[in-house]
């Protein structure tokens, strides 16, 4: 039963969702909204599981004085402050001018932006490795990347001014993006769509059970 019930629920829900896409009539027209609401409710309760798990792991780290336990203290204190202020400010805790929004805007957002900013450096290091002309494929990648980057900045057209207009770097970059790039991306998208159909069918029919722990 522990295996059969989830499989049955998955199968029924899967079939109903497929049908609701093609049948506009009630009750199929409401299925999407109902399931969305149910998912939100389950998710809202589950967040407590996550939050308690985070607190438990951090507390155990502090109590056991495990390595880097100082970070765990920061997590616990930050968590308690945000939750306490959020509850104290009631329903309007997200409004402009509240302490909660101040903390979000001036503490969390800059920290988040700092993490995002790291991307610039990581793009540089990853590009350096990807663009090393070790073989024919990597060389083609390097050339395409070089042309695209030149074509996307004004200096590209300035240094290719002597070429016919259609062969200047900005035009070449547009051509690469419009045709070969789009063709490649669409091929991947078609594969993904078919993979989705296949995976969904396996799950609906109960052939795929690995997400329930695998086995038969």
């Amino acid at each position, binding site marked *: 039963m522990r295996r059969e019930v989830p499989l049955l629920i998955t199968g029924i829900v899967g079939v109903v969702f497929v049908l609701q896409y093609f049948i506009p009539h009630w009750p199929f027209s409401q299925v999407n909204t109902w399931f969305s609401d149910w998912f939100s409710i389950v998710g809202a309760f589950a967040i407590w599981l996550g939050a308690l798990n985070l607190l438990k792991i951090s507390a155990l780290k502090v109590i056991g004085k495990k390595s880097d336990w100082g970070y765990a203290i920061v997590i616990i204190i930050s968590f308690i402050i945000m939750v306490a202020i959020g509850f104290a400010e009631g329903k309007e805790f997200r409004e402009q001018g509240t302490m909660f929004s101040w903390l979000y805007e001036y503490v969390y957002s800059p920290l988040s932006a700092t993490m995002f900013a790291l991307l610039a450096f990581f793009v540089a290091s990853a590009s350096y490795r990807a663009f090393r002309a070790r073989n024919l494929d990597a060389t083609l990648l390097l050339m395409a990347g070089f042309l695209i980057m030149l074509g996307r900045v004004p200096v590209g057209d300035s240094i290719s001014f002597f070429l016919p207009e259609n062969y200047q770097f900005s035009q070449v970059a547009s051509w690469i993006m419009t045709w070969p790039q789009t063709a490649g991306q669409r091929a991947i998208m078609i594969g993904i769509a078919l*993979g989705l159909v296949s995976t969904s069918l396996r799950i609906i029919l109960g052939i795929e059970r690995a997400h329930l722990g695998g086995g038969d």
Partner: protein
Amino acid sequence: MRVGKSTFLHLCLAFSLSLILILILLTLVSAQEVDSLRSSTDSAYTIPDSGLVLVAPVTSLIAEDYKYDDGEQLKLSWVPSIDDQLVDSKVLGYRLFRSIDGGTPEILAKLPPGTNSFLDRTVQRERKYQYYLETFSENFVVQSIVTAAISPEREWLNLDRGWLFIIALFISIAIIFFVEKAKRGHKLYVRKIAGLEAIDEAVGRATEMGRPVLFIPGINDMDDVQTLAALTILGRVSRTIADYDSQIFMPVSRSLVMTAARETIKTSYMAAGRPDAYSDDMVNYVTDEQFGYVAAVDGLMVRERPATVFLLGAFFAESLILAETGNSVGAIQIAGTARPAQLPFFIAACDFTLIGEELFAASAYLSGEPRQLGSLKGQDVGKGLAMSVIILGVLAVTIATAWDVEIMHNVHNWLLGVFSSN
């Protein structure tokens, strides 16, 4: 009677003058008529005395049921006022009025000039609705005809999606056919996927080095099929980890993923005969916030230095940050996502990348189960269909453009109709 020469000259002069006068009068009259005619054809004109800016009403106002819905919408269409089509339009807009069950009309919407349709989403099936439009200028209002009473209707099938249904049905039948064929023992060839072949090696490396395996299932929730695909792979990976007596860490950004992942790993450990080695702490929740999660995972990578990192699921801007950090700690990395925009980052920074469909094929591939492999074969039928349609479309457009062959124009339009349906 003799008429004198001078009298004759006077008569001629008088006649000429009369003729000229008549001609002038006729010219004036005809000019006035032309002006009057012109005024009558230009409807957006100002009457000098009243100062009204007259405008023509909308025409051909039609209210009809919106096709293929649950009886929740009525569609209105009309030809805008002729004055709305002039360059220097005097029409300031339209007011749409609605009467319910023959009651007093009430204003439903104010619409800008140039509007020629409206979708009324606030209707009920048991009521009858009538509509009319007022066209207004700065000081003049004119009303259109009132539509016939109409009620919205429910439809059972969305025929706009008919072709999509047929294609989906065809692919589904093909998949089920190959699943059944595989069940009966028919051998199927599936090409090798390097990223999946490397899983045992990657887990073995972690075991030998005495370092953990880090599994990241993307940052989306359980309602994303990529997360589901990641968990199916987790089932196989955690079984190998349990067999090798290695260690796994799985920080997640969604509570539901945490509970599902725990269940998956637990069952795998039990299947491997090592339930005692399982701990709930293998999977822990961090935060729903994207970059908060990235900071936590990056920190974990730098401190714990995992030997193997799996990045499988839905990733966004954090993909490269995670992959580059994993690369910097010397981990062997196997990544996979169905988000094309993130694939180049994974290809640049990871050792193996499952591209799109390979992520979904992974579980079937790893299980080696004939039924699951059969479903992969069914996908190939879909690919064959896609390739045939692409070739047909390219040929149709090329021939239609080069030689103006009507049948090819028709084929092109038909294909557009089939694949543009919503």
